[in-house]
């Protein structure tokens, strides 16, 4: 039998092929961060400080939408459609299959971060990331945390029809309080406390360090990193508990 690594590679390739096959979905997936960048770039054009907030904010939002949102949807869909159950009956190890799904999402996150970095340089004069290490560390930990939390959220979604409402009711408020579109400094204290305890604000904090000049090296973002790491641990526990290979009954 093929090794787990070879199987994972094949599974991953298949997921990528299927992702690109659904052209409209793939297109809008990558258009969305560009639309946001263009819109907010136009709104705050020329205001250096605000651009420095928007670009990492949209990078953070991209991480969340490609991993958390996408996996919550996909896992619910695959579960309710009975695809998970079918795969479970084959000799493909379950872990390999789920890693394939996760790597697919991670690839989209990486592509979107790339798009944001390039757009930041080309259109907003942001320059190449001054702290690439900070950027990479936060991207990796952030992607892991949000992917796990997305998988965990799928367990709480009873049917595919209810997925958009449930996912958006988490995604939109988190985006709003976490300073994607404005500096969290302008937010009332209690909301800021909430935002800083959630994973997205710390992620944007770290991405800011990576993407924007003068926000300190990795060492000055360790609290943020710890918060995201904690969420990743919570994500592991919740993603594993309550995982179901079968559609929810009635």
């Amino acid at each position, binding site marked *: *039998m*093929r090794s787990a690594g070879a199987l994972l590679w094949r599974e991953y390739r*298949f997921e990528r*092929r299927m992702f690109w096959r659904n052209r409209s979905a793939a297109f809008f997936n990558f258009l969305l961060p560009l639309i946001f960048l263009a819109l907010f770039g136009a709104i705050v054009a020329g205001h250096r400080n605000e651009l420095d907030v928007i670009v990492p904010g949209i990078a953070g939002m991209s991480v969340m939408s490609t991993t958390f949102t996408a996996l919550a949807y996909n896992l619910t869909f695959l579960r309710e*459609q009975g*695809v998970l*159950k079918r795969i479970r009956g*084959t*000799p493909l190890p379950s872990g390999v299959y789920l890693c394939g799904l996760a790597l697919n999402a991670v690839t989209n996150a990486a592509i979107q971060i790339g798009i944001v970095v390039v757009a930041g340089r080309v259109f907003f004069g942001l320059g190449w990331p001054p702290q690439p290490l900070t950027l990479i560390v936060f991207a990796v930990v952030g992607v892991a945390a949000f992917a796990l939390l997305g998988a965990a959220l799928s367990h709480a979604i009873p049917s595919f029809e209810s997925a958009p409402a449930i996912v958006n009711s988490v995604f939109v408020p988190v985006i709003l309080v976490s300073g994607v579109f404005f500096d969290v400094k302008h937010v009332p204290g209690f909301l800021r406390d909430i935002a800083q305890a959630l994973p997205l604000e710390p992620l944007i904090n770290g991405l800011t360090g990576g993407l924007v000049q003068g926000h300190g090296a990795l060492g000055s973002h360790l609290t943020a990193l710890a918060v995201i790491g904690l969420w990743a641990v919570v994500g592991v526990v919740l993603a594993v508990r309550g995982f179901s290979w*079968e559609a929810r009954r009635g």
Partner: protein
Amino acid sequence: MPGVEAAIEVRDLRKSYPASRGAGGAIDAVRGIDFSVARGEIFGLLGPNGAGKTTTVEILEGYRQRTAGAVSVLGFDPSERPRELRARVGIVLQSSGIYAHATVAELLAHFADFYPRPRKIDQVIELAGLAEKRDQQARHLSGGQRRRLDLALALIGDPELIFLDEPTTGFDPAARRGAWQTIRSLRELGKTVLLTTHYLDEAQELADRVAIIKGGRILAEGSPAELGVGAGSRYRVAYANGNGELTIVETDDPTRLLNELTSAALARGEQLNALSVTRPSLEDVYLELTSDA
């Protein structure tokens, strides 16, 4: 595969589902059933909706945990879901989904990678009757064609044992005959098949042995012929007598009865109109056993 052990052994299998919100108390879906399926045999579980067919089959496939009893599938305990067992069985679930944007050939090629010794893709496509749909995406297949894709995906790993949970539900009559032909060809390849069905003709056509299941219990078991004419079932002779009244006589010895009837008629110079001799079909047995009366 050498060895004399049965492909499937089921002893006093029980399954109850816990009480769920809004659905009353616990459900005893399977209440102590026994059967075994020999290697190379096609075994049919025949029963109405809610009889416990899917529950039984999914315990054998490793999807559900039994409440009590002993089961063995190719010598393994399916509840432990050993990978070797999954490589040696093929499963057609009662309903399951697939990647809608992948073509038939792509899906088979992908699934073939999961197995140690897969069959040739085009062979399986041919066997499942999907040759014309080879390069169609799954979302463009009709319901019946999707079902054939399910069968093809179950056969791609060249399994020894194949579970088919209502394999022909939703097929048109021609497609059903086609699927029956495919299943018969599995027998010729020496495969073991456990199939569930509501359809008597399907059980009668395909199965070497049938268990009629209802309310989680097996009510009768045997070859379709045995079940039809087994103990207690008698020949039925019907004819119109001299006054044109239809008369029905049941007998264990139709030869003698016919001889008596025809001799008497000849002696009286009468005709025996509308004469027929029938045995109860599996259908009669099935309806009688599963009726609520």
